[in-house]
């Protein structure tokens, strides 16, 4: 049985092409993935991300619990509304999921986790939470709309009650606040996103989601499918769970070392394995690749380096750069000339530092 978000009929009415996305019936595009991609880079686009899972954690020991659960340190969250990106690891240091944690107060935090990993995430979190008496409450009654692009914030702020606008305008990156939206609907607005553009991710009670979506359309925000979301996040250098990392990949191997907080005295799940791996020398690294020839890099293609074989993780045609880009995991060490096997042809690729695109423009060296 395929799950549907509350916006399903709205997507169909707009002519969306729907696909199965991790058990959810979601729009892949509304006609042209390419145009939707460019709309986000140049103006403002929005995505229904209601399939993502919102989980509220309650209890006096919630901060203590998150210190144990997450590889990044919630102690960095000092002000209500601040958010943090983190991996949740297994004992082997493999990534169970990547998520965003929002801080309300010491006894109340919110997690937003991936859609496809919902069941295993909930099971893991509930198991770990027992020792801390933390209540784990899924919030399926929320829908979520991501509005992204250079003009995204302006268009959202225009829909917020006038008295609350200055406060939302001042919201820093990776911070969130509640504010009334159209007809007074309660919005939880976070300055986060997954496209490399500025914007907001908005959590809204389901019953208001269709009205909010329509208000955003009327404000000139273009509906975009998950196809464009994927090319945007790849250009922006952001990992996709299941493709770029999974339970057999550590954050070191997924270029997420920056999210690991080895703060003193904090025994988070997976820490010992991460430290052992680092001491031993990390054997695989994640790199960015650009194909200057014609062709498209795809997940699963073989990558040939001087140190041995690797593979393409996320790979796609980049609409902004008009050539193929990819993440690959390759053996550590000097890689020499890198080639990718595309249907039996070995094509040379360039190793680059990503992100590939920032603020709508190609990054230096891409």
């Amino acid at each position, binding site marked *: 049985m395929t799950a549907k978000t509350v916006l399903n009929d709205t997507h169909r009415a707009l002519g969306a*092409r729907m696909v199965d996305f991790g058990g959810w019936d979601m729009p*892949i*595009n509304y006609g*042209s*993935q*390419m145009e939707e*991609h460019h709309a986000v880079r140049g103006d403002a686009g929005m995505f229904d991300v209601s399939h993502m899972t919102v989980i509220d954690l309650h209890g006096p020991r919630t901060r203590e619990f998150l210190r144990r659960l997450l590889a990044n340190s919630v102690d960095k969250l000092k002000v209500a509304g601040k958010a943090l990106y983190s991996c949740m690891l297994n004992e082997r240091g493999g990534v169970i999921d990547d998520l965003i944690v929002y801080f309300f107060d010491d006894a109340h935090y919110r997690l937003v986790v991936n859609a496809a990993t919902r069941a295993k995430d909930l099971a893991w979190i509930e198991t770990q939470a027992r020792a801390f008496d933390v209540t784990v409450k899924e919030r399926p009654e929320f829908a979520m709309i991501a509005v992204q692009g250079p003009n995204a914030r302006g268009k959202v702020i225009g829909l917020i009650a006038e008295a609350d606008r200055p406060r939302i305008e001042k919201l820093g990156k990776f911070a969130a606040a509640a504010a009334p939206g159209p007809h007074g609907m309660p919005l939880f607005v976070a300055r986060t996103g997954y496209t490399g553009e500025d914007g907001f991710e908005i959590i809204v009670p389901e019953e208001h989601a269709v009205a909010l979506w329509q208000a955003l359309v009327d404000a000139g925000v273009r509906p975009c499918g998950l*196809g464009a979301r994927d*090319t945007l996040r790849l250009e922006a250098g952001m990992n996709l769970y299941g493709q770029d990392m999974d339970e057999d990949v550590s954050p070191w191997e997924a270029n997420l070392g920056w999210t690991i907080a080895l703060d003193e005295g904090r025994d988070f799940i997976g820490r010992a394995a991460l430290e052992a791996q680092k001491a031993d020398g990390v054997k695989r690294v994640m790199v960015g690749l650009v194909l200057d020839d*014609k*062709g*498209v890099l*795809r997940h699963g293609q073989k990558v040939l380096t001087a140190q041995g074989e690797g593979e393409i993780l996320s790979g*796609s*045609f980049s*609409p902004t750069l008009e050539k193929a880009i990819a993440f690959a995991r390759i053996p550590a060490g000097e890689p020499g000339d890198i080639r990718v096997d595309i*249907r039996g042809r070995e094509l040379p690729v360039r190793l680059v530092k990503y992100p590939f695109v920032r603020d709508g423009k190609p990054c230096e060296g891409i």
Partner: protein
Amino acid sequence: MSEIPGDLKFLKSHEWARVEDDGLVRVGISDHAQAALGDLVYVELPEIGASVQAGNGVAVVESVKAASDIYSPVSGEIVEVNEALTDKPEVINEDAFGEGWLFVVRPSDRAELDDLLSADAYAEQIENEDH
């Protein structure tokens, strides 16, 4: 859904074949297929002179989303390919049944053409797919 030209024959896998006046068979993908694939960004064409078997993959079209093999509707020899697609693969999105053709085969066994779907039968197939 655009009109399906009545002079075309189809494979179930959405390739069309048009028998030209000179007996050569021009091949492309259907309008339905291009719409399903989305924005096309790369086309890998066969070599001129290559011999192909009916039902075998001979070309690849790639959209932003995915790569798709293109099967030859008939056996024979590739005598022409649509080089214009190398720089402008989006022509397939714009005109799948016309300027977006992929390659031309000189058929070695014209009886194979009888195994292909008529335009009506193909229209019925995609009608059923949509439900």
